[in-house]
């Protein structure tokens, strides 16, 4: 027990005396989550649009007002002729032009039918799709209101509801993603580097020639980084709740427990990596290549796994991050309970056990 305590203490000395790494460990999560949350978001806010209103009646004015009032659009130009449309697109000032035909409100009242033309700049197809979607929603809203007033029977209106994330906020997607990425990086990379450092500075030789048991060595190497990762987890949660307005909808303790499980999986990965790398640089590079890239590409939060070809889908199953990302999304965003995530949790438990077993078996009690 004494051996264990002094070893953990020593490990913390290493961490706290290396100011640069310390700064990276604690600032990286905050910087990344804010970066992903604000700057690199894929939602579209305040798009500039232009309006060509050939009708100028009660309805068009209201629709224009609604578009302008929403946080997605900024009506900044009023066009006067059809010819202006092409010019304004070419100038790149707007992303969408809304065209109302003459006698818009009239035809809506008398023939119950009116048309609006939404012209979007589809050189960026994703943005174009998204903003026309937004605009359609706003116009539908207005239409519903009109219907409510005039009470025309038998009209089937599709009702769209965006569950769990009604405002379609990108941050809802990124918080679990960044959480996954940071935990796997900190836990796995730091653990592997910490063990390999002992080899590199030669202290491993003396530690091996001591009565210290390999299991104790491994556990006491892992504990400090599990603890650090938990601190990071709390930081991420605080930042996401307070700055990014992403709430923890599910049970906080369940979320913490699942995160602890994932941290243990990541630390086991780090132990594995430390088994077959010899220098700190090697360990770092290997962690980056084998953890960061799969997490980013196959973790599911950058690119949806369902749309990948099946070999990649199959490979994604062995990426622990994928499972943890599913858990966090379910628990944190959807607010689901353990009964909904036990399968994913079981996968992580199994992965940890296998990794721990391998790294313990492969632990070298000698130098070569």
């Amino acid at each position: 027990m004494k051996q264990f305590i002094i070893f953990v203490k020593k490990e913390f000395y290493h961490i706290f005396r290396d100011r640069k790494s310390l700064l990276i460990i604690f600032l990286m999560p905050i910087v990344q989550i804010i970066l992903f949350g604000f700057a690199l978001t894929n939602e579209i806010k305040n798009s500039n649009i232009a309006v060509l209103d050939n009708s100028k009646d009660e309805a068009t004015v209201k629709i224009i007002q609604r578009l302008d009032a929403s946080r997605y659009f900024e009506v900044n130009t009023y066009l006067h002729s059809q010819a202006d449309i092409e010019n304004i697109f070419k100038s790149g000032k707007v992303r969408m032009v809304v065209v109302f035909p003459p006698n818009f409100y009239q035809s809506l009242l008398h023939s119950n039918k009116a048309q609006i033309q939404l012209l979007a700049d589809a050189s960026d197809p994703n943005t174009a799709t998204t903003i026309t979607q937004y605009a359609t929603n706003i116009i539908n809203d207005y239409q519903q209101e009109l219907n409510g007033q005039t009470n025309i029977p038998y009209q089937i209106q599709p009702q769209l509801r965006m569950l769990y994330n009604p405002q379609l906020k990108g941050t809802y997607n990124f918080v679990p993603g960044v959480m996954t990425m940071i935990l796997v990086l900190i836990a796995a990379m730091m653990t592997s580097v910490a063990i390999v450092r002992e080899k590199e500075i030669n202290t491993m030789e003396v530690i091996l020639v001591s009565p210290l048991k390999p299991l104790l060595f491994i556990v006491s190497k892992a504990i400090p980084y599990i603890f650090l990762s938990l601190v990071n987890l709390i930081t991420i949660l605080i930042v996401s709740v307070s700055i990014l307005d992403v709430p923890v909808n599910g049970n906080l303790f369940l979320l913490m427990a699942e995160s602890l499980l994932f941290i243990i999986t990541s630390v086991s990965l780090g132990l594995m990596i430390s088994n077959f790398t010899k220098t700190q640089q090697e360990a770092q590079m290997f962690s980056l290549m084998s953890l960061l890239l799969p997490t980013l590409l196959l973790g599911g939060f950058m690119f949806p796994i369902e749309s990948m070809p099946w070999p990649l889908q199959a490979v994604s199953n062995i990426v622990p991050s994928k499972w943890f990302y599913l858990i966090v999304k379910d628990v944190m965003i959807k607010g689901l309970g353990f009964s909904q995530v036990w399968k994913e949790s079981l996968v992580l438990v199994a992965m940890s056990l296998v990794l721990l077993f391998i790294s313990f078996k492969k632990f070298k009690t000698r130098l070569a």
Partner: protein
Amino acid sequence: MMIAITVKNIVKTYGTKKETITALDDISFEVNGGELFGIIGPDGAGKTSLFRILTTLLLPKGGTASVDGFDVVKDYKQVRNRVGYMPGRFSLYQDLSVEENLEFFATIFNTSIQENYNLIKEIYVQIEPFKKRRAGKLSGGMKQKLALCCALIHKPSVLFLDEPTTGVDAVSRKEFWDMLQNLKKQGITILVSTPYMDEAALCDRVALIQLGKIMSIDTPQEIVKSFKGQLWAIRSTKMYALLKDLKQYEGTISCNSFGEFHHLLLKDDANEKELLTYLNQQQHTGIELKKTAPVIEDCFMQLMNKN
């Protein structure tokens, strides 16, 4: 007297099937309990490989070895419980203070600084004024003292010191050897390796090792005695040219530079008068030639040339 270390026909090779390097080639020797035994040889002679096999860090390719009666392969756990090891490369935590390093190593060896303080006291008092200083900021000599304290703190019965004085200044080297003499008095068996031949004289017995082979094992005195022939010390005003000319002289067996003199061994039929005539012909001035007693280095050179 009990035998502390037994090495029998140890072979160690490195590399793949295509290209193997033999680091230790059929080495055998014994070290008695309480002995200060030196492994003397240049870099690459196989000293570190031998130490790593004896400290259970490497497996030998062939042969057996035991420390304190325990086999280094089969009973490696028992061996680890009773040896102290100071590897060649500085292996303390640079970012931990002197005190923290010592406490750490004491604890992982299941002991405490207080328990065995008397053992390290003499050494530790010298570095105690700097106990709050980080190990990375210590001088080379102090680092070695701290490393020795860390290797000693659990009162090992056999102490392995792999080139403890390499890269340490002359004064600290002397101090270090004084410390080893004191440790020997406490009954600890010490196996020490060094590339410095002058340190061999400070050991009880030495093994001269070269290219993975032991050339001679004996007390330093006996090794010196076994030197064959009369050794001369010679110098002149132009030392480099002198060395070259002496090596070309037909009566020369060997000539090596040795401090301010060259050590020269002549063939039996050669004599000093003829040598001086030869050197005068070569325009050497200020020649000083005298008989000298051989030291370990001369013996090493002689053994090396013989093989």
